């Protein structure tokens, strides 16, 4: 097992290198100029922009810039933001906790909804419950988050005035009231994101369960006289979870992407909004770092998925 993980990690290195090379070239060739705002300002003489370009090495050929980036990265230096004139890792670390909090909560909510509803629906296919659950799931993943987000704001903030729609980094109060404030402001974004994820996951859990529940070994378990709950939880669900784990693991990076929209709507200072504002201001070191983090996440969650397979179903051996 340990060897397997190690081997997978070693395979990840060249793929990450390849990803970084592609990202770097695309960014270098993309139109846009990090100092365009300076160029349009008549107060700023053109030589200031030129000095900055020279300072950040923007006038060097692409391959030199890439090698320099790679060398710095190898030493743990993520680069220097043109726009904020500070280190990129500081910028990312400032925003990571918020992103993890919101995305993590949303994902937990999605699982809490999807697994019980999906399993219950699968045990009673085409019952009223199943049909309602299916309809809601279809509605849920057909509506984009920017739409539901706006809808929630109009209902809960503007009309009912229950919840704030601007996510504040600095929640007032201490102890319980601080915790309450944190939860209150996260309700809407977590619901928007969690329900969207949960909807598609419900459909997935249901069909995975349906596949498993008809297999002979489940019938055998029932025939042995085991209770329904025990059959479902111990025998069927464990196997049904394998494709679900794949889905969740592979969706994780996409969720970070999906959160970009939600972060923008609720002004959540997460990685997604950092990426958006960096793209808008052509702050290439930050774009590079954030997209690279996403790439690492894809590789990392794939690995986790592989490890989880083995734990869920020992027949999948590590070779």
């Amino acid at each position: 097992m340990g060897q397997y993980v190690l081997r997978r990690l070693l395979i990840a290195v060249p793929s990450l290198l390849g990803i970084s090379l592609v990202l770097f070239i695309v960014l270098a060739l993309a139109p846009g100029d990090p100092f365009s705002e300076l160029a349009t300002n008549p107060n700023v003489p053109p030589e200031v922009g030129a000095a900055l370009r020279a300072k950040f090495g923007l006038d060097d050929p692409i391959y030199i810039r890439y090698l320099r980036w790679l060398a710095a990265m190898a030493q743990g230096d993520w680069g220097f933001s043109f726009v904020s004139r500070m280190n990129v890792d500081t910028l990312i670390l400032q925003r990571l906790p918020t992103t993890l909090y919101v995305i993590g909560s949303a994902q937990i909510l999605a699982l809490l909804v999807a697994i019980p509803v999906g399993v219950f629906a699968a045990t009673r296919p085409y019952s009223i419950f199943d049909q309602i659950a299916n309809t809601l799931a279809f509605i849920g993943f057909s509506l984009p988050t920017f739409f539901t987000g706006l809808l929630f704001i109009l209902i809960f903030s503007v009309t009912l005035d229950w919840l704030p729609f601007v996510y504040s980094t600095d929640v007032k109060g201490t102890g319980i009231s601080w915790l309450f404030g944190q939860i209150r402001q996260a309700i809407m974004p977590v619901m928007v994101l969690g329900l969207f994820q949960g909807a598609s996951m419900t459909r997935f859990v249901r069909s995975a369960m349906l596949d498993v529940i008809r297999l002979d070994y489940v019938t055998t378990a029932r025939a042995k006289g085991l209770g329904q709950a025990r059959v479902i939880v111990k025998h069927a669900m464990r196997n049904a979870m394998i494709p679900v784990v794949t889905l969740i693991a592979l969706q994780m990076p996409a969720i970070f992407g999906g959160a970009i929209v939600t972060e923008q709507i609720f002004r959540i200072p997460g990685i997604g909004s950092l990426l958006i504002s960096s793209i808008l201001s052509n702050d290439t070191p930050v774009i590079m770092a954030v997209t690279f983090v996403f790439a690492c996440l894809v590789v990392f969650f794939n690995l986790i998925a592989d490890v989880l397979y083995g734990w869920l179903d020992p027949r999948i051996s590590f070779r």
Partner: protein
Amino acid sequence: MLDTELRTMIDEVKDGRMDRRGFVQRMLAFGLTAPMATQLLAIGGVAMAQSPAPYKPTKRGGGGPLKLLWWQGATLLNPHFATGTKDQDGSRLFYEPLASWDGDGNLNPILAAEIPSIKNGGLAADAKSVTWKIKPGVKWHDGKPLTADDLVFTWEYSNDPATAAVSKGVYGDIKVEKVDDLTVRVLFKAPTPFWANAFVGAYGCILPKHLFAEYKGAKSREAPNNLKPIGTGPYKFVEFKPGDVVRGEINMDYHMPNRPHFDTVEMKGGGDAVSAARAVIQTGEYDFAWNMQVEDEVLLRLEKGGKGKTSYAVGGDIEFIMINFTDPNTEVDGERSSMKTKHPILSDAKVRKALSLLVDREAVQKVIYGRAGRITANYLNGPAQYVSKNTSWEFSIEKANKLLDEAGWKLGADGVREKDGKKLKLVYQTSINGPRQKTQAIVKQACQKAGIDVELKSVVASVFFSSDVANPDTYSKFYADLEMFQIPMTQPDPALHMRRYLSKNVATKENKWQGQNFPRWVNKEFDAAIEQAEGEIDPIKRASLYIKANDIMWQDTMVIPVMHRLKVEATSNSLRPVLSGWSNETDNIQDWYREATG
């Protein structure tokens, strides 16, 4: 005539026979803006009014939190590195200049003990130097005193090319010398009528020498205080997350009495303008939101029964259509829109006039800008003393048709005019931005009726406004026949705003399109007027020269002004912000307060 009349009036103000307000009002009647009028007085030897803001609180603090919403968050907090007003606004909570501009265009002293004038000896009669006195007893947030050394240092800091300070343009051509601990003299190379540039407004913020001395030039980016500002301002630094939030708390040692009113300040960033307007006007979650680039009908809808309202500040920002004088479709020496070519259609003044007649400004205002725009025929729209009264605009398809007939463009069978086998087809480009595309549509429709086939082109703003030499779609390359954008007027003096169109500033391949004269318009008369104005100390003559330059632009139809744009902000009903079209939103933040009954 105006000249002598003005002189008499200035004398009357000097002798006390006329009050300042009366003077400014009469100037407005003459078509001059208030800031110009006050500068006229200042140069005419009358001290500037110390316009007291109607500030009511009688003690420091107690106002609770002030919550500001900027839909683009501040990304850095060193005013000399600021890219865009969001950074200047964030820095300004902590750093201060010697003086700032109020809504009428008067200088308001902040760190200065008084505003220099000829009377108090601050302004040299030859306009080659200004002496500023610093208010005594001002302390940096860390307790060290503010002295003339800090001002001299700020000049050196910005002036060092390796610092790559964006304020280099302001400090590059001057010299700053210390007279005594609380006095500095700013020396100009040539007589400079607009003396209030260095140490005033956004780029005028003063840095503490004791914290930045080691981080000048190449080491500038390593300064720890780039992220933790220690200034003299009304609020002390608490926290900064780039692009997200800037927080400050009250400075109990602030140098102005009873100020500031608020105990803490928070400037939150991100999101979009519409939801920022909603958070202030509709739900009241925030007290103030910046730059409401939202259609007026949306704002009007939000205002109904809301907890806030919109406020406006009048500056000189202008949205206009530029006309290409060179040929964008012919390549000469590897360069399109080359100075060696002439536009085959638009070099005819009659066609340009016809185009101007086809821009229905009234419709554009009614449908798009609403309260945020004023119709104008001028490129230069403020301060009042510089605004020409000699110009006019008109929307008339009939007259445009007539002009085009005269110019020899005959209506073809397909409804498009042609001349010598060439169709009257124009490419009209702008950045992607709702109001701009709507304006394009309005103009295109009118042009169609006059037999002009207009092809609309929209370019993503980040490309359109970039200085990327490799991209053909930037506004500086101007590979189109017409283009539309806005030029903000960043200070209440027209020099920078107008000098773009000097012949020597033409954007070409040779200067990597760094020149700001994108229409590549060459006019000797204009050049002469501007060059004369820049060295003219007499404010009245200077104003008339800029008016003349504006009129030349108008007569030659080198640009088609579309809308004089105002700054639009959202304010909660109880907040009393002090705003000015001539400065940043937070430039007078020390005077903001909340009305007790809100």
